[in-house]
């Protein structure tokens, strides 16, 4: 009873609108989310959703299979591996900042940090690690960040997402903020994330096939042919904002952290497939 009361207060204060505790039920959300996609795309094997547009379009899938014989993200994995092993100026490495020395842990990110009361994505954790060891944080969108996360994702391939929402009203508020961000229309084109990735997966926008939201974070970071290089989760989100004529948020913004938390929780049980390659 007390927990429900706390949740209701946190949500009302956090989201500044009168939501009841019954409206914030991550487990029910995840169940409905999975059912929506698996019913709508009943021929797509469950674990194939993490392959995004390739799970929706046979022709595109064939191209991907051909491209994947010489994966364009391979250089990023190598660079990330090297960065991971290179000591900081104080002699420590990334491995000192992460559980299991950072190997095979991608599936546990983002997580809710009960000390700071914030969602910690893998990218945020990498920068926290650097700053704690006297190094400058990496740009959230550029190649170095993509390289480290690519290597960490690669060591976690096949491991199922295991995102937890602790028994903390702040965690629920963060989850709900991410959910709100995902479903909120923005930009001059008046699109939400859901407009493309829930309502229209498999459809084309010009030459691109839209990916389903279910499992969409599993392949990140990605090499995008359209970018001619690697991109981080932050880059992907910022690009989505720009594409609807919205001004992107800065890297590490609370909304970006929370929406990744929401989406990754929705993907619980699906395997990490990153780094990925996309058109």
């Amino acid at each position, binding site marked *: 009873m007390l927990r429900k009361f706390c949740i209701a207060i946190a949500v009302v204060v956090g989201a*500044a*609108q009168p*939501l009841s505790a019954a*409206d914030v039920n991550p487990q029910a*959300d995840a169940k*409905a*989310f999975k059912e*929506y996609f698996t019913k709508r795309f009943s021929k797509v094997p469950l674990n194939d959703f993490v392959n995004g547009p390739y799970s929706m379009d046979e022709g595109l899938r064939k191209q991907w299979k051909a491209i994947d014989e010489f994966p364009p993200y391979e250089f990023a994995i190598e660079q990330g591996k090297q960065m991971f092993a290179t000591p900081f100026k104080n002699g420590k490495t990334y491995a000192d900042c992460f559980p299991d020395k950072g190997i095979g842990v991608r599936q546990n990110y983002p997580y809710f940090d009960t000390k700071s009361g914030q969602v910690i994505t893998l990218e945020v954790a990498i920068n926290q690690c650097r700053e704690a060891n006297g190094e400058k944080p990496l740009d959230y969108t550029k190649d170095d960040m993509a390289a480290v996360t690519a290597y960490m994702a690669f060591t976690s391939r096949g491991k199922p997402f295991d995102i937890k929402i602790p028994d903390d009203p702040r965690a629920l508020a963060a989850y709900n903020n991410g*959910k*709100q961000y995902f*479903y*909120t*229309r*923005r*930009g*001059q084109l*008046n699109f*939400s994330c*859901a407009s493309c990735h*829930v309502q229209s997966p498999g459809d084309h926008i010009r030459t691109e096939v839209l990916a389903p939201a279910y499992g969409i974070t599993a392949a990140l970071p990605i090499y995008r042919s359209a970018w001619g290089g690697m991109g981080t989760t932050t880059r992907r989100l910022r690009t989505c904002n*720009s594409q609807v*004529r*919205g*001004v992107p*948020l800065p890297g590490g*913004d609370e*909304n970006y952290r929370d929406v990744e938390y929401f989406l990754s929780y929705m993907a619980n049980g699906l395997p990490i497939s990153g780094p990925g390659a996309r058109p």
Partner: protein
Amino acid sequence: MRNLIRLTVALAVGGFATAALAASADDFKAAYAKAEAASKQAHAHKNEWTTTLGALKAAKAAGDAGKFDEAVKHAQEAEALANASVAQSEEQKKLWPDAVVR
């Protein structure tokens, strides 16, 4: 003579009309300030539109070049876009739950 008077009157009326329609530096400053205020509101909602910033930039460039008519027009466009993005944010606070997969 009569034609000369007509011409003089026509030019004078035309001149006054142009003077009345032309925007001044102060008009531009006022319009730009209003646009900036609206844009700050949109920023507070974390929902600025790229087109708003584009129109603000165009307004400033025209203002700096002394093209005040054009500058006011761009500033007014920026203000309208910013106000629309704020209205979108306010509306979406109520509407987003309707889109949730249940």
